[in-house]
């Protein structure tokens, strides 16, 4: 079951739609009345202006930021959102990463990739989960524990992007849940343990997690 807090992709979709759903909602209400055509034309223009200003008011003063980016690589060719189409007709989708909704929560994101014929390939549609780090009596991190029914879980999207929203700011391991088995993912660069340490009120961007192979394959 893909339950609870792990439904980040849907959450992303919902937030994105907030920016575009405003105008239809405003226009829908006046049409419930019977309005003469000439007045209707004026109303439409007025509503359009109002929508424009309201939309402008909804635009944040500063664009969303990723305050705790951990070296997310800058693409050699800057990507473009679909809002700003250029001469190249192939759009690049840049998802919005939601900020934590509370000061004691955090967001964790990254892109899961596997090397395929020498090239990074997105790993899409797999379940990732957060495992709690369990210390032994002296305080040394000793185990990662994964409770499938209660852990934060999410699905990677078409580019391998994963987002855990509003998680408590504590240490985690990253689990690849393949339904029949689950695996604790290590650090793809060092081969050692991968500890995720988000900070309260911030977004932890892990960047590209590029593995030579993934367990269970």
């Amino acid at each position, binding site marked *: *079951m893909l339950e609870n807090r792990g439904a980040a992709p849907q959450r992303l979709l919902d937030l994105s739609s907030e920016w575009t759903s405003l105008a239809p909602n405003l226009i829908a209400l006046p049409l419930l009345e019977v309005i003469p055509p000439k007045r209707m034309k004026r109303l439409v223009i007025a509503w359009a202006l109002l929508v424009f200003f309201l939309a402008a008011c909804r635009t944040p003063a500063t664009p969303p930021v990723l305050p705790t980016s951990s070296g997310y690589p800058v693409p050699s060719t800057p990507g473009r959102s679909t809002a700003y189409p250029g001469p190249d007709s192939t759009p690049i989708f840049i998802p919005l990463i939601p900020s934590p909704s509370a000061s004691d929560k955090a967001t964790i994101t990254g892109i899961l990739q596997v090397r395929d014929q020498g090239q990074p390939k997105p790993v899409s549609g797999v379940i990732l989960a957060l*495992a709690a*780090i*369990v*210390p*032994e*009596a002296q305080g*040394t*991190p*000793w*185990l*990662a*524990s*994964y*409770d*499938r*029914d*209660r852990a934060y879980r999410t699905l990677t999207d078409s580019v391998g992007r994963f987002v855990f929203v509003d998680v408590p700011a504590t240490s985690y*391991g990253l*689990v690849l849940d*393949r*339904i*029949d*088995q*689950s*695996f*604790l993912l*290590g650090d793809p660069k060092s081969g*050692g*343990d991968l500890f995720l340490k988000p900070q309260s009120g911030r977004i932890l961007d892990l960047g590209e997690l590029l593995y030579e*192979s993934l*367990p*269970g*394959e």
Partner: protein
Amino acid sequence: MKHLRIMLVTILLGSMLFTPTATLAQTIGGPYKAGFQVQNLESTTATISLLFYDQSGATVANVTGETINGNASKTYYPLENAPTNISGSFNGSVVISSDKQVAAIANVLTSAETGGASYSGFTGGATTVSLPLLFKNVDLGGGTFLNSWFNVQNAGSTTATAFVTYVASPASGGAAPGGCPENQSIAMGAAKTFAQADNTCLGNNFIGAATITSTQPMVATVMQIRNTSADILAYNGFTSGDTSTTPVVPLVATNFFGSITGVQIQNTGATSTDITVAYSPSPTFPGNQCQETKTIAGGSSSTFFLPFPAACGGPDPVYGGSPNNNGFVGSAKVVANTANMPLVAIVNQINTGDKDSSAYNAFNPAAGKSKVSLPLILRYGNLFTGIAVANVGTQATNISCTFTGSSYTVSANNVQPGGALTASQGDASASALGSTYVGGATCTATGGDAKIVGVVNQLNADLPGTSDALLTYEGFGF
């Protein structure tokens, strides 16, 4: 308030610590990774502690205050960098204590996590433990060798010595002169490794059984490995409480889409006995009713269903026959045991095409219940399960299985003693489950004396042949 209940789990973590001679490194395999899963069997929160022991018996870590919600489970992955005091490498054991009733399984994986095996934790041990199937450098040709090793954990209250003696099977190419005895002192809670490739007394190509004896209760888990693949097959050692004069095997399959099964039966008694195994094909699957009889000396073991008995079905794919998927899929039961000796058995399942493999323990018919819970059933993309539910009673019975969250059912009527209901959730006949089904099944016996047991194979058909994609678990009777 429940009293403290102790689970004993033998697990292996990190690299093996054997002297890495070239031969040994190749035949023992590894390094390995291990994790374990603990389930709270009660409805209120359990608080557990975990004591990690190295092979000397020293406590290397103590994890306390871990909680598991009622009826929930947690999977624990030992962190690689945690045991810095043992250089990130650990071969040892864990003792789990809980204020609620808990159960545990351990998973041992290859370092690349492309193959692995599971086994159950123990609630207690015995002073005699039987291991039906072990290998030393069994040459399969082409540079492929089978080997085995096992860990013995002291489940008692004081340090004790575990004594091991071996007996070669009739088909063995290597001898075990004088039983090739070996022993190791094991501290309370700790585990020691016995690698058959290390026993210089055992001949190469040894196939056989072993018996462990001690003054303290011991538990043991065996790993069977093949040096050229990711295959690991695990099984737990048997105690006297596990024995039966007529064990039952719910699933055997040979010459059916690459499958091969071998059943290794050990006579844990002292007297030689003639064993007859009856094989019953499952409804809608290929095969003939057939039997096989072999003599097994006291303490020894013998292989059944391999070679494939000609009377059971199509050609033997292992010994020169051309596979045609018209072999046999069904169940097996010991129907004659002339000296009435206690028996135990393990079942190895191999898929020759994809080199998938798994093992499971045969059942004592006394363990049969009217219902069997199969908690994980899959029809999810290329993941799917197959179930086999055997009638271990003395009368014919009807078996019906329901699946959580679905109206899909499978059933078989008038299943004879020793027969089984077999069904694959990967087949088109199970399409009612959809393509993203993750659930469980409950199988119920009605009529006759209504005693059944079951096993489930889990297969990932999407994995390459270099991976071991087959897992097997035993159902829970209730």
